[in-house]
């Protein structure tokens, strides 16, 4: 039914680590999902009692252990329909389910808003891409930048501009349009460096930096053993940030040389997709933890200490094969014991029953995520 896996066994790749899923069942919250060899998703759950170990379970085993919310059941249905698992495809499924209202009105409004922002940002990325290409070809983008245009008028002008660019590069207009659309779709989660408005992954990197600093400050002023957990989470964040910044720099360099769109587009597409996907994996799981930490910024010390235990439990370690440290570099056993000592067992842990108040707290956090 399920098997316990020691914390010492670290996943080698992001794929093995799994994708964090914002479930609303408290015991399932932020469980990681990965496909088995048969393609069926399985879930990695940090130990329920805060101790050492990780549970790996197929979905069908969960009802024996806990009551799962309707939201999570519908989300699982949506995940099953995905053809490919990545943090980005999972995010789309999550937002679609959340938008139905099954996780409450606020979470629904937030999901609808995020989906609209995503669509708007993709259009903005495409537009910025065209402007940058025009500048590169020493063509005047003034016409495109004029205000008061309708959507269709703007699209017509973009197409005309891409047609001109295609002519110069000996590419049919359709091919040029297709390449720009493809690149804009690929790059939108991060955003172009030339765009003043930041893409969501670029924003996530900034937010993680802010949170890392906050965790470090907190760790320096908390005199209990919990400060060791804060140091660990801050260090984990730093590892993700270091690799993310490298990736971002690499991606931004590629985007500053957009001439490749008209050249070896396949190589450019592959490289950009690789960078954006890696950034997606590096940030996976952090937005929830950032909001969780933010939610206790004004709370008493004990609440912050308790939340730190939760951050430790859920902190996404970078797999060794992806540039992370060997687990032996951390004293996980000692840290695990500290976390266990500071963890309060809720009613749901003892009985497997659903604590609706706890579910609603998670839903409220979901409503602040985008």
């Amino acid at each position, binding site marked *: 039914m399920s098997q316990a896996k020691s914390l010492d066994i670290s996943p080698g790749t992001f794929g093995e680590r799994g994708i964090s899923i914002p479930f609303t069942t408290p015991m399932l919250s932020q469980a990681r999902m990965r496909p088995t060899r048969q393609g069926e998703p399985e879930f990695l759950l940090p130990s329920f009692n805060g101790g050492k170990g990780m549970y790996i379970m197929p979905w069908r085993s969960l009802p024996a252990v806990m009551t799962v919310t309707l939201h999570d059941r519908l989300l699982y249905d949506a995940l099953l329909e995905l053809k490919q698992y990545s943090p980005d495809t999972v995010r789309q499924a999550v937002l679609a389910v959340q938008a139905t*209202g099954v996780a409450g009105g606020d979470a629904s409004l937030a999901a609808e808003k995020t989906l609209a922002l995503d669509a708007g940002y993709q259009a903005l990325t495409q537009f910025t891409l065209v402007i940058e290409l025009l500048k590169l070809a020493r063509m005047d983008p003034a016409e495109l930048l004029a205000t008061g245009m309708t959507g269709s008028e703007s699209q017509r002008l973009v197409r005309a501009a891409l047609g001109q660019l295609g002519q110069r590069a000996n590419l049919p207009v359709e091919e040029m349009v297709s390449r720009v659309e493809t690149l804009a779709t690929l790059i939108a989660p991060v955003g172009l460096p030339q765009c003043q408005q930041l893409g969501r992954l670029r924003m996530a990197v900034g937010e993680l930096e802010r949170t890392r600093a906050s965790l470090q400050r907190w760790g320096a002023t908390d005199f209990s053993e919990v400060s060791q957990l804060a140091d660990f989470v801050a260090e984990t964040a730093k590892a993700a940030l270091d690799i993310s910044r490298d990736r971002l720099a690499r991606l931004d360099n590629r985007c500053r040389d957009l001439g490749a769109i008209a050249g070896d587009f396949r190589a450019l597409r592959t490289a950009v997709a690789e960078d954006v996907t890696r950034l997606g994996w590096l940030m996976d799981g952090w937005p929830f933890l950032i909001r969780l930490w933010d939610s206790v910024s004004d709370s*008493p010390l004990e609440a912050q200490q308790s939340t730190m235990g939760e951050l430790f439990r859920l902190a996404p370690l970078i797999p060794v094969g992806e540039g992370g440290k060997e687990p032996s570099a951390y004293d996980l056993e000692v840290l695990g014991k500290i976390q266990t*000592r500071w*963890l309060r067992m809720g009613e749901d842990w003892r009985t497997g029953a659903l604590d609706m108040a706890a579910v609603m707290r998670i839903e409220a956090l979901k409503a602040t995520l985008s």
Partner: protein
Amino acid sequence: MTDPAIAQWQTLARDATRLSDAKFLQIYALLEQLGEKPGIAGAFDAMRPRLTQLRPPRRPTVSRLFFRPAEDLFDDPGVYTRRLQRVSRGTLPTAWKLVRARLDGGMVDGVAQGILKADPRDPRVMARVAAPLWEAGAQALAAIADEAENNLRFMVDNFGRDDDVLRQIQTLRDVLLLGGVIEDLKQRLPERPIGDLAESHVEAIKGVMAQLGGAESPQAAAPVLLVLTARMLRPGVILKMLTDMRVTGNSQAQRDALTRDLSGVVVGNLLRQTGTMAKPPEPTPGATSGAAPAVKDPVQQLGSLAAVAERLTDGLTSVNDSVAILRDKKIVDRVAAARSEIGEFVLTTVLGDVEKTLAALMYSAGGVSTPPDEMKKAEATVLALKRSSKLAGHLGIQREVTAKITEIRREIDRQTERMMAAPGARGDPEVRRQMFNNLRLVEILAGSDEAERMYREWNRRLT
């Protein structure tokens, strides 16, 4: 200040309760700046019900800091009950006036300066600032109690002829003597009401008990335990901890006596709260009938009433063992009576018109789907009902609660049927939204399995 002047302050404060929140808070802030002058305390008494709702940030003062370790034991004069080691807020102004007169002026000024320099949101710093105040203040309280006992004139002039005030002063003294320890422990434990304890919390409590006297002298920790039981959702947990405590030599009798005393206090307090929970707050002396009552949102009120019932039921259940140890039939009977009183309270106040409240929130608006704000209230309403259903077994009201839930479920089904049968329902996003609104209520009331079953059925009909 003369009595008429004090009365004027109270009248002014009562008038302020008729003003808007912003204006009311402005007046409160101005009164705060006046400091501890006679009459101001009475003005705050008049303002307290509304302040409880608005919860403005409070500026720490020397007197507030002085009483902080004991604040969990304070009751408003209207609900104060004797012999439960509680302290009436009405005693505090006189107690502070007498303590202040006995304290070294330089030390008090030093504390006042410390308050100004410290971050008031950092309780650890505030505890450091207040440490000398608690120590000297506890000694002053002992001297005051001594004088009151031996000097009838002093007693009558300051406290009247009621000996109970001396017991309150004694409780204050005992707690303030351990002020630093208590405040430090509070920071290491969850916020009140404390529900579950982690291993580190249990260790912190045991550590304090060991530090204060340990196995040889369990009685020394009594004031800490008194404060702690007042902060716990299930005070029986602390009593159990005490029962399980290892003792040495003659301390067995001491431990048993402490357990008995504390159990009596805890049970007495729960019974007192049960007795007062359904009563409306007593009017402030001198209040005019024209004073605007603080109106609370009925849904919010429903939620807080359910929470009170849950807290008291949890509390009473947690002290079952301790009540048995007391071997006092009278208390056992009173606990049983309290349970049925809570049951009656839940039936009349929480369950009363819950189905009508819910129907008005969910189905009375013009559109197909319930507006988001109304939906939030509807969820809070069914959560209150669900809370009550968890208590039903303990309170003997299972049948009534089940009947209410069944009635509400039927109404949800009826309304959903009606909505889906309407022309154009299939492609209407509003219908789909309302289906999920209804499913939210079903999930809270009947669980996720039932909600999934309903979803599959309703979704099949809409697609």
